[in-house]
């Protein structure tokens, strides 16, 4: 649904971003490829021009990402993965000099051999698809192609980023390039991909022309029997491809996409692309996968009390900002996109569900998405650092560390930014639009937005292995004399009580914390204090007795080990324990009734 709202601040930021980025030369990758449906192979050739070659260049490295899946059973007898049959560099076939190591291919090259500072590269390849339907392969009539073309590996000023993708926790990394691809498939198949310009059918074959800009790779799904539903949100066309059995969910999915696009446009940066494609059923395993301007999600459970598809769709749409627009290194710094995206997922869900951020809402029983994070993180908080590279994290620990712990840490960090949080994300995104920022730049930028002045506190927080525990241990009130006389014999009243609150803080974060004092007359005094670890006796005098005290009353420190002890009152303030007794008794009785008939 189109929004009627002027977007001039976002346009200004985008324009500035383009100005900053215009000096970076961007490669253009042209490719022509054809799918053989009977042998499940794709053959083709890729051509690209690398301009302004560095004099320090000693080799060219190519990303052969599909080789990652060579352990999967190949469908045909052809060699597994991506085989480059010939590689021409400025007209000379250099394939004999190529060295292949898992998912990397390299050839030596010297600057002296170049007549100008430009390299024209052309490769001919054969791609064999394994029996797989997660990131790459063919299964149950669906071809899923992620990072399938042999393009140059990403590079930095210091040299090539040669990444071993055989570790299942490592996601593809690439420099943003412009793709111009012609893909021919049998006419009984349909191609689903972003950037579709046109298609031409001839002799039972259909050629799809795809143009995608600023992308690290070109994602494609090829199958048959899918329908499409396209809607418009703020000039962004979002298309959902689905099979008939998922028809019931399309309105919901489109609504989730629309809400998320609007939220991110409002709070971060207006999405600069005009297309987003989502395919339901492109993945065999549960969950979702992000690509430039494309999202793959698994088939939906027919019924679920949990709103898990919503969570997945929201999460993957947010990746369009943090992974695509901010093209962070998913191998070296997976947290820069996943932790940030997971954090924003909670923000969007909270906004979408009137403040509850719910994962479950079932006849009065609610659970927030954040609960999932807290429980998932408990097991490994003390040994899993957030800033680990992807290949040092086991698959089992990936979600709890990078997603769950990361989101909790992001929430704790951004709580320190207050009203300036949106400005932080806007600045972060604009500064690194289509760039690959180092983690240090995130720390540095965040330092300038958080309160307090201790240097290095952002990195200290984000890499912590210790859950803090902020607690109110004790409250005491001592009666004071409340009358005195002055020289002119008038009566002056002084405070009636000195109240002492004992606080206990373990593993304090390097940021100030809020304190709240609640008095017998209902008045509340809020203050902020910078408190390192330890125990403290905080004294205050007042006319009223202190009846309650809170430390971090808004639970902004999301990594706090125990929220229950954040507050303490002199008298009981709720009957929650009785309610728990009531329901536990009833549940156990019901268990007996069901099992033993009494």
């Amino acid at each position: 649904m189109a929004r009627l709202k002027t977007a001039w601040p976002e346009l200004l930021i985008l324009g500035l971003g383009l100005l900053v980025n215009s000096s970076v030369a961007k490669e253009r990758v042209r490719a022509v490829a054809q799918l053989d449906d009977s042998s499940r192979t794709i053959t083709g050739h890729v051509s690209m021009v690398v301009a302004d070659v560095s004099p320090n260049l000693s080799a060219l490295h190519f990303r052969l990402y599909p080789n990652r899946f060579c352990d999967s059973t190949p469908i045909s007898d052809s060699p597994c993965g991506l085989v480059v049959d010939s590689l021409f560099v400025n007209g000379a076939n250099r394939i004999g000099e190529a060295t292949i190591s898992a998912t990397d291919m390299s050839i030596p090259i010297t600057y002296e051999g170049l007549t100008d500072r430009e390299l024209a590269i052309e490769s001919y390849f054969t791609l064999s698809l394994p029996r797989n339907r997660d990131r790459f392969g063919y299964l149950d009539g669906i071809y899923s192609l992620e990072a399938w073309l042999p393009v140059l590996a990403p590079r930095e000023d210091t040299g090539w980023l040669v990444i071993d993708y055989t570790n299942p926790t490592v996601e593809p990394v690439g420099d943003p390039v412009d793709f111009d691809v012609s893909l021919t498939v049998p006419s009984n198949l349909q191609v689903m991909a972003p950037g579709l310009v046109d298609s031409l059918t001839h002799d039972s074959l259909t050629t799809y022309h795809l143009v995608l800009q600023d992308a690290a790779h070109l994602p494609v799904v090829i199958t048959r029997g899918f329908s499409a539903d396209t809607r418009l949100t703020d000039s962004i066309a979002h298309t959902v491809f689905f099979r008939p059995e998922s028809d019931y969910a399309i309105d919901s999915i489109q609504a989730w996409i629309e809400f998320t696009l609007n939220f991110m446009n409002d709070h971060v940066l207006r999405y600069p692309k005009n297309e987003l494609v989502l395919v339901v059923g492109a993945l065999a395993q549960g969950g979702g996968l992000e690509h430039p301007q494309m999202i793959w999600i698994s088939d939906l459970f027919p019924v679920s009390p949990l709103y898990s598809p919503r969570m997945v769709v929201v999460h993957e749409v947010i990746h369009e900002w943090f992974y695509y627009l901010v093209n962070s290194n998913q191998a070296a710094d997976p947290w820069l996109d996943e932790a940030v995206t997971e954090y924003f997922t909670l923000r969007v869900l909270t906004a979408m569900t009137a403040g509850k951020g719910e994962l479950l809402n079932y006849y009065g029983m609610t659970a927030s998405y954040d609960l999932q994070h807290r429980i998932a993180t408990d097991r490994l908080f003390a040994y899993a650092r957030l800033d680990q590279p992807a290949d040092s994290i086991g698959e089992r620990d990936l979600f709890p560390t990078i997603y769950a712990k990361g989101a909790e840490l992001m929430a704790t960090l951004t709580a320190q930014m207050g009203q300036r949080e949106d400005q932080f994300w806007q600045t972060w995104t604009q500064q690194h639009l289509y760039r690959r920022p180092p983690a240090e730049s995130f720390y540095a930028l965040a330092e300038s937005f958080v309160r307090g002045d201790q240097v290095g506190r952002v990195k200290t927080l984000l890499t912590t292995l210790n859950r803090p525990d902020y607690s109110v241990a004790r409250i005491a009130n001592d009666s004071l004399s409340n009358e005195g006389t002055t020289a002119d014999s008038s009566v002056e009243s002084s405070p009636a009580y000195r109240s002492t609150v004992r606080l206990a803080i373990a593993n304090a974060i390097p940021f100030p914390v809020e304190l709240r004092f609640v008095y017998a007359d209902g008045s509340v005094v809020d203050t902020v204090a910078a408190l390192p670890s330890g125990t403290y006796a905080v004294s205050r005098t007042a006319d009223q007795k202190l009846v309650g005290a809170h430390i971090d009353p808004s639970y902004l420190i999301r990594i706090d080990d125990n929220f229950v002890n954040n507050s303490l009152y002199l008298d009981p303030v709720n009957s929650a324990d009785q309610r728990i007794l009531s329901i536990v008794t009833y549940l156990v009785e019901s268990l007996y009734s069901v099992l033993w008939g009494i």
Partner: protein
Amino acid sequence: MSPLKNGWQNWRANIVLVPVLYGTKLLLALLFALPILVLISKDVQFSSYAAPLAGSWDMDIIGELVRTQVGVAPTLVVVLFSFMLIAFLAKQFLNGGLYDSFVRERVSLPVFMAESARQFTSHLKISIFMLPIYVLLIFMGGQLSRLLPLSLTGHFGQAGTGGAIGRVAVVGMFVIIGVVISETLRLHRATRPERAGWIRVRESLDFLRIRGVRMYGYYLFFLLPFLVIWLAVEILAVKITGGLANGLGILIELFLFQMCSCARTGQSLLFTATAAPVFRSYQHNNPVTP
């Protein structure tokens, strides 16, 4: 007099068994729940974090309480399984006196206790015998329930409840068959203790061949009002407690829950009270040769 009327009178004659059985169930539940109360009460009562629990079932708060007591959780699970076993054995013990009372259509404490002790192992054997039958019936019900679309009323959240209820109902219809068989075997034990083993099974099946459908109907006749009560209690409990969000709301919810639990016990015994005279009448008209 109609069997339903007979059953009602039999139930009223033995009505003291309702609080006895319900009280046993409640006691065994409290023995598990009260230590939990002691464990969390000090933290929960004096902290404002858990206050929303008074009006809503916020799993975030429950999750936080579980996290703070995570060391105790495995112990609680073991204790719960232990209590389930104790409840099972207690029920097998009480079964002897219970079925004897309904067969006699009167209850007397010394006779109740004597029969409970005398028939304990028999009822234990019947329960073990019934276990694979229940498993088979649940499996059959599960297979048939798959014909029902899971998304009968919707797909996400509460809307998906209709399909789930439908499937549970189909499985439940099969489980009731097991309940009827179990009741028949136990009534046979109470009336003809000397006929044991496969003879008991055969004679019980002879009864079910003639009266099985009627017995199934009686069970449904008593179950359906209970289900209405249960549903009303659940809805009321959520609405009232959520609306009041204080100690009074919790007290009302506690009362409603216990009323529902007692009604379940009453419903179960009402079926037994109705089945006993029917079974006795059948045996009277179909004497067996030794």
